[in-house]
């Protein structure tokens, strides 16, 4: 609800009128005054109402025993039955654990790497080299997970995959990376890094471009080396961008990526591979348990909201501007 406040202020200046008196019953006056600005708001409100909020009534099937033939309204209410089933399900701790571990690995490894790569690119002085590398690291982002999974299967194929042979020679082992449960998470994080790190640098590179160049010159005169400059000038310069990106990333944290994990799962690694996303698909779509899987999805969304507000509050407490 930040947008209307800004609109109101700029409106006051533009119309060059004294601020509307804020007292009881003044809304009609206030409204008449700014009616054109409110009109501008209407398309946005309608969009959110129709395409974002109205479909949410479908969420009600989380509290019903939904059968497609009976429809959303015709299906009987069952209260919080599905939530109780889910939390008491022996799979629940495993799903939660797998989801959180993957989420934190992605956040803890893939996210900082994006910043590191952006810093590295920023230090490249040769423009043509910098641009070429930038373009090259963006490319994997445009490949679908199906292709990434196929590539992984080829590279790590048992007995003849080049990476299979190389890594096992180096480590002196004979590990089947594709089915060994201990290697599932490293493989997933590796794929994530390979595919999305380059793309993630875009926003950081934009932020880096805004850092004041004079400060670098001053630092050089003071005798600061490259690392000192990165640490004391570059990083503080993009701190607020990092915080905003972090909050957004944490909000998306539990979306561990259905396709990627589904494609890499097999009978031998399922114990570590099952996450909320694959579970919702497996139970909901293939077993036709819509209500139950909606309940699981709803739970996931609630955790996401808590995380995003939590991180935002935390960021504000440490004197950083949050997201909202």
């Amino acid at each position, binding site marked *: 609800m930040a947008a209307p406040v800004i609109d109101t202020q700029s409106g006051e200046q533009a119309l060059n009128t004294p601020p509307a008196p804020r007292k009881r019953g003044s809304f009609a006056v206030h409204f008449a005054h700014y009616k054109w600005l409110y009109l501008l708001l209407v398309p946005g409100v309608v969009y959110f109402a129709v395409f974002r909020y109205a479909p949410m009534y479908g969420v009600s099937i989380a509290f019903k025993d939904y059968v497609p033939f009976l429809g959303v309204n015709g299906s009987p209410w069952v209260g919080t039955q599905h939530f109780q089933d889910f939390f008491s399900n022996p799979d629940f701790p495993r799903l939660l654990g797998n989801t959180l571990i993957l989420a934190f690995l992605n956040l803890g490894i893939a996210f900082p790497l994006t910043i590191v790569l952006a810093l590295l690119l920023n230090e490249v002085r040769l423009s043509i080299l910098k641009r070429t590398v930038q373009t090259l690291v963006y490319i994997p982002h445009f490949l679908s997970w199906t292709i990434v999974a196929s590539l992984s299967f080829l590279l790590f194929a048992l007995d003849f995959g080049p990476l299979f042979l190389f890594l096992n020679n180096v480590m002196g082992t004979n590990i089947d990376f594709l*089915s060994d449960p201990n290697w599932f998470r490293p493989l997933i994080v590796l794929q994530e890094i390979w595919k999305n790190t380059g793309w993630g640098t875009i926003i950081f590179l934009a932020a880096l471009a805004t850092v004041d160049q004079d400060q670098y010159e001053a630092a050089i005169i003071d005798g600061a080396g490259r690392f000192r400059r990165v640490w004391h000038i570059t990083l503080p310069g993009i701190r607020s961008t990092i915080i905003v990106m972090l909050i957004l990333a944490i909000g998306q944290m539990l979306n561990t990526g259905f396709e990627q994990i589904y494609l890499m799962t097999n009978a031998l690694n399922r114990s570590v591979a099952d996450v909320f996303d694959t579970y919702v698909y497996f139970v909901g*779509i293939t077993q*036709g348990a819509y209500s139950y899987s909606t309940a699981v999805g709803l739970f996931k969304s609630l955790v996401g909201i808590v995380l995003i507000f939590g991180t935002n509050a935390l960021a504000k407490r440490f004197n950083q501007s949050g997201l909202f």
Partner: protein
Amino acid sequence: MMRRKLSLAAAVVTATAISLTACSGGEAPAADLSTVSIMAPFLEAQPPSADGAVQKKLEELTGKDINITWTPNASYEDKTNITLASSEIPHIMVIQGKTPGFVKNAEAGAFWDLTDKLDDYPNLKTTFPDIQQNASINGKVYGVFRGRAPMRAAVMFRQDWLDKLGLEAPKTTEDLYKVAKAFTEQDPDGNGQDDTWGITIPKWGALGTNSPYDLIEEWYGAGNRWTEKDGKLIPSFETEEFLEANRFVKKMVDEKLINPDFATFDGTKWNEPFFNGKGGIIVDVDSRVSVLVNLFKQADPNNYENKVGFVGNLEGPDGELHAHPTDGYSGFLAVPKASVRTEAELAKVLEVLNTMNGKDVAILLNNGIEGVNFTLEDGKAATIKPETEESKAVSTDIKSYAQLGMNVAGNTFYPVKQPTEYEQQVFDKRTEVMAGDLKSAVYNPAAPYVSATYVSKGAQLDNIVADARIKYLAGQIDEQGLKDAITLWNTSGGDKVKEEINQLWQDNK
């Protein structure tokens, strides 16, 4: 104050929006049934064209406009569920099996109960009442089943390797082990390198899906999904024979007679190791024999005979043949109540299905159009050569249209004449072997029964045992671990499934 009024305004807008979207859903128009819509899966790369020769002929024979929604097979199950939740429901839906989604909808009344209706139509009255029973939900028939040959299990092997090593075709599971061992250790391709293995198994873990594991278990006498013991039905994985069979497979895995990546190997590449001379044995359905023969033929048309040998089911260690049949059907054509509202409309739809089950349409769907893509030779359909654009289109289209074939009274269409003498021999031998094995078939006694607990939890429950089976074979867990998984199956709801299945079985005896 302002905030409250604003949120009130927002609420009004939202409410209006909701009622608007609710209205646009609307009511489906009443069916006049001059057009019959059908939803069906296709397994080819492209769906058939809507104005092809087969489509026109089908409309001519049925006297209706037939509107078929072809849906990719890979996502068919998802699409079925989504279609049932939508307002665009076809008159006839191909349902691929008694999936939880289908059972729930059927029990809520989404489909017409056809139990007492089918016998009134000459072409819908089945000559295989057992199979119709298998396809029912606890005795209620919700669709016209799509008949399939019940006996299909076969062991195929590189005949040239077998001849080179001077071995006999396997008859028993013990023979299978010996052949696999020889294929692995005695350099059957004669290149002086230790680069071959015996049996190739792809990523295929799920229980009761006619996988190589399921076949070997049945040959050992574990039964077909369920088996009767001491007057009660138990899942076949609770038998001693199940454990024996898996010890046998594990022995082969440990001795490297099976491809080491059996848990992850891509099933669409199953033929490759066989063809390329890596893995010499495949345990699957007999139709793969002809596919393999054709692969060799395409690579070298002058030298492809005697590359592929095969036998049917194998005798178990008890010296008896427990042949593995399927349930004899591959889903059914069901009629949703949401699109076909009245008994009168239902009668019209069943009339169409009756025509589609007649000989003329059966020939169209399976053989094609006589004089265009095939001619009759000694009662067999021979493909016309050389193929024209037109005949090719028909031959391609019928691969998809065959999905609509039901054949509840056996196959009324023509057997296909094989292109060469050798392939005809292979085909005839397949037919003969399968007919022989059918006499020793061990059926699933619980096939018609659907337990409520199994509907809601079955897939998760079965996964416990299915994953444990693969883990045991791969050496991640020992036999005790496999037994623990079976106990977990029971305590997680499996004992309830057993109770319900036994109750239904007793009631219907």
